[in-house]
């Protein structure tokens, strides 16, 4: 009996290898002269063939009242105040490669807007280029694809034995180290690798409000426009009817850019 248990233990010990790699990314959003930073953690489960990317809210948006450290010229006093209410929750991008399904949790400014979007995995059509560069001690190769209204350029390496990438930058034969896009607004950078950090299962995200991605985008854009109109209407003397909503900036986030007819 004892030998039997021992025999059982040995194979179990061999198998109790940590199956989840944890990778830290930094997302930088640049709008005109300002940058906002958000942090993401990508977890790749090679045993269960799942991955989850957890993205934080832009850290600089959460607190107001500090002064700018680098000003534009000696007279600029760019101390600015953040929006009064902003959701601090994470956004999740979960993929189950075996079942070919994806679960995404997104929201627009307010936590009350949180939704769960279920879909099949939409692999980006990557074009692998010959260009390479060295990032850290790894050789990284260039690839491009058009994903969610933007053309992304990434550098990935297959020297780490991990396949995956932050956000929707999946499906490459390697790990994404750096990513930029054609509007120069967003940039991902890998900052830390924790290979085989845990052995467990990545939990599928859940939220009671379920919708489709297109519905979510439409609703987000409509609500943002209404908020802008509302803010204008508080100003005396403004003729709301004179304002052309369609002359506003195109509303954009990481996940979409507004399309205007």
């Amino acid at each position, binding site marked *: 009996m004892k030998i039997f248990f021992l025999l059982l233990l040995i194979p179990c010990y061999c198998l109790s290898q940590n199956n989840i790699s944890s990778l830290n990314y930094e997302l930088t959003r640049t709008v005109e002269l300002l940058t906002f930073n958000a942090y993401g953690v990508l977890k790749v489960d090679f045993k269960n063939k799942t991955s989850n990317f957890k993205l934080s809210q832009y850290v600089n948006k959460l607190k107001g009242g500090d002064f700018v450290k680098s000003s534009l010229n000696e007279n600029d006093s760019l101390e600015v105040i953040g929006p009064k209410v902003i959701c601090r929750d994470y956004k999740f991008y979960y993929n189950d490669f075996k079942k070919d399904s994806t679960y995404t949790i997104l929201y627009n400014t307010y936590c009350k807007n949180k939704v769960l979007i279920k879909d099949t995995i939409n692999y980006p059509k990557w074009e692998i280029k010959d260009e390479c560069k060295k990032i850290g001690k790894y050789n990284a190769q260039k690839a491009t694809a058009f994903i969610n209204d933007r053309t992304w350029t990434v550098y990935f390496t297959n020297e780490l034995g991990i396949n995956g990438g932050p956000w929707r930058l999946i499906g490459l034969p390697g790990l994404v180290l750096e990513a930029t896009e054609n509007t120069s607004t967003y940039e991902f950078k890998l900052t830390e690798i924790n290979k085989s950090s845990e052995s467990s299962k990545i939990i599928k995200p859940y939220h009671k409000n379920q919708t489709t991605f297109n519905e979510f985008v439409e609703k987000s854009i409509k609500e943002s426009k209404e908020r802008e109109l509302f803010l204008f209407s508080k100003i005396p003397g403004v003729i709301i*009817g004179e304002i052309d909503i369609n002359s506003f900036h195109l509303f954009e986030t990481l996940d979409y850019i507004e399309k205007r007819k």
Partner: protein
Amino acid sequence: MLPFFMLKKLFFIILILSSTIAYSQTILGTITDVEQNNLDYSYVLIKDFDSTNVKEYSIARKGKYEIDLKKKYLKIVVEIQSNGYVTGKRVIDNPQKNKTYTIDFILEKDTTTNKLDEVIITAKRKPFKIKKDTVSYNVNSYRDGSERKIEDIIKKLPGIEVDKNTGAIKYKGKPIENVTLDGDNLFGHNYTLGTKNINVDMVEQIEAIENYSENPLLKGIEKGDKVSINLKLKKGKFNFSGNIDFGSGISENLNEVLDINANLLGITKAYKTFATLSYNNIGINRSPFNYFGFSQNREQFIEKRFLAKRIIPETSFLNTLDEERVNINNQYFGNYNALFKINKRLKIKTNLYYVNDKITSEQLFENQFIIDGQSFTTTDDISIEKKPKQYRGDLEVKYNASKTSLLEYNLTIQQENIQTPSSVVSNNDNSFTTLLNSESFYLRQKLLFTKKISDKKAFQFSVFQSTNNIPQNFQINPSIIDPINYENDIQKSEYSKNYLEVQSILLGSTTKKNKYTFSVGGIIDNNKLQSELFSQNLAGNNTAENGINNLRYSKKTMYQLGSYQFNTGKWKLSPSYRFRYLDQEIYNKESNTKNTQTNFLFEPSINIKYKLNEISSFLGTANYEQSSIVDNYLFQNQILINNRTSVSNIPSLELQEALSYGFSYLHDDLYNLLEVAIGMNYQNRNGNFFTNSTINQNTTQINYFFLPQDNNNLNFNFSATKYIRFLESTVKSNSNYSISRYKNIVNNSELRNNESRFFNTQLNFRTAFRLFVNFENTINFSQSISQSDNSNEFINESLNNTFKIILKPAKKWFVLLSSDYFLPNLKQKSENYMFLDASVRFRPKNKRLEFNLIAKNLLNETNFEQIQTSDFSTNIYRTNILPRYYMLNMSYDF
């Protein structure tokens, strides 16, 4: 010759071969682990043999893979990668065309302990930039074709309010200090010069900045109260640019109406300049000075305590209508602003102003008095021409003596002359002509030294000096004192003020972000008032009885102020106090009497803010102040201020105690598109100058005297704004109710207690349809009730409704039609006024040119009557209005 069956085979072989020629090489196979289990999800990579770059790849599902090579290779490596398994590799030398390679892979588990924790592969995380969300507005996002000057855009920005009459800008409820151009303060407090004149096309971005510090050495140390707006100019416009507007038209009485305006903006690295020249006679005030109404611009409000008093008041043009309808003007305005950056340390700025205007008005004052059961009426039919002229120059020098110290010097010289000739017909039978000549010479200097002691402490020392002389001369023809013997009466008055203040301030902030200030200072305020009322004829002058005033009023103050701002969690407390030693003296040369008083004062105040949650907060304030209010009531002997009124005082150096409390609740829910503000304010002033008026049909004598009695005022206000989704419209409501209690004496009565109540409510509805047409409607109702002890109640109710139709029929066109309906007295529905205006704007493709066709007052309303009630009278004020006019305006940008 081959047999037919072989030909068929050959044909099929050729067919198969040809089909494989069309495709490139195919590589396929299975991927399993050592136990023959299919590996579900793997990557198949194709690499050039002599490179580690991936050339092509595909994803293998359920243990099977197939990849069609798109390019030709000499030697390739086929790699299979599956997380958790050792990568499988196979080399294919000279992969043949039309060949299918079947390669099965069996992968071994990767058992190497990969504990490569904390591998940082990028140099360093970007240093955490503490650049917060800027409230930075991109001008183009807010344009819709209807704006021309940058003020039109600023009005639309969320959080920003612009006062229609003065152009003053408020950001999040706080008045803004400055409007800077690329960080440079060109306009000072008179920022309306920039916002009213700079063309929208010159500006790229508008930044609204809270906790603004004009002095960069005080950033982070100074209490964060100030707010500012920065205009970022378009890059590449580092040259001269500007615009010219030319408008010409015709008015009802066949007079020409003109509106000409030219602006020039020049920017180079060391020199920034902005100049404007304008002329108009359609009621627009392009200058920052308001000679029409009572409204003071921000600078005048701040400077009030340094200015002398205008004893004989200038003509007032009361109005409930938009100033533009009733300001019958003829204004020339010129302004030049320049900023020179001499070197890294030295900056010089200069502002020059010139205003020349002529405001005409036909006014009728009809007053019905009911005093002690007796009633009588007075009427004054006045034809006025107010001609103000102003020359002013400002100079500012800023010198950075070192990285932590700044020296600033400011100089203002202003010369203003206002000539107001008018003719009056009083009570339908007496006619007079009057001429008021007021001059004002103002010189003001300030020297300020700032030293930054550390990141958290700063010290300032300042010296301020000003001189203001206001000589006035009021002449009335024929004499009202003695019309038989004299031709005219002349009232001369001269008030001069000399002010000197020295102050030192210590400012700091603590590690917990609490802020404090302590200051010590002294003020010497010397005033001189001389006046003489005399009647004149060819033979000589005769001074009226009690017609001379000659006095000196001096006020010496030493003070110590302190304030502290605590921030703890949801609370923000700002207590402050002021200790003062006040010494006052009035020396009356005429009677050779001296009146002195010395006081030690302590005046505390506190502001409390409690943040209930992210979207609501409570605010409370309490304030105690003691002030001397005798400046306006210094002269004991009479001064004639218009054809029927003379004023005198019984001065008193007693102080007024003012105690006020305020409380408000703010709810700003951007998610539900709802904003609510409720507030209450109570103010009690103990110690006031009350009026003792003796009124008869021809003259009114007002005497001011001091009583340690109360006047108080209680005010409630409520406002709410909501965007209603299904109506695609915004609804806004504003209500205000106030009760004032005050005392006075009329025609030798006892001290009467009076109460006046005022209620005003406004409802505004604005649509935001995505159609070519939109509407806006505002309805406004006011009620005022005045009452005095044991006497009648005077009630007046008025109504006003404005309706606008906004049309955008095509991209280059914009049409605005508006109607303004007024009913000044609900009891007299037949006395109503309707103003109709229309404007059509066309902007052709080249965008440098714009045309406007404007029609104002289409129904040609010529007079407007306004009614006011007080506790003993009903006053009807009738004024003429700018007649109907049509104008074509062309604007060109360069």
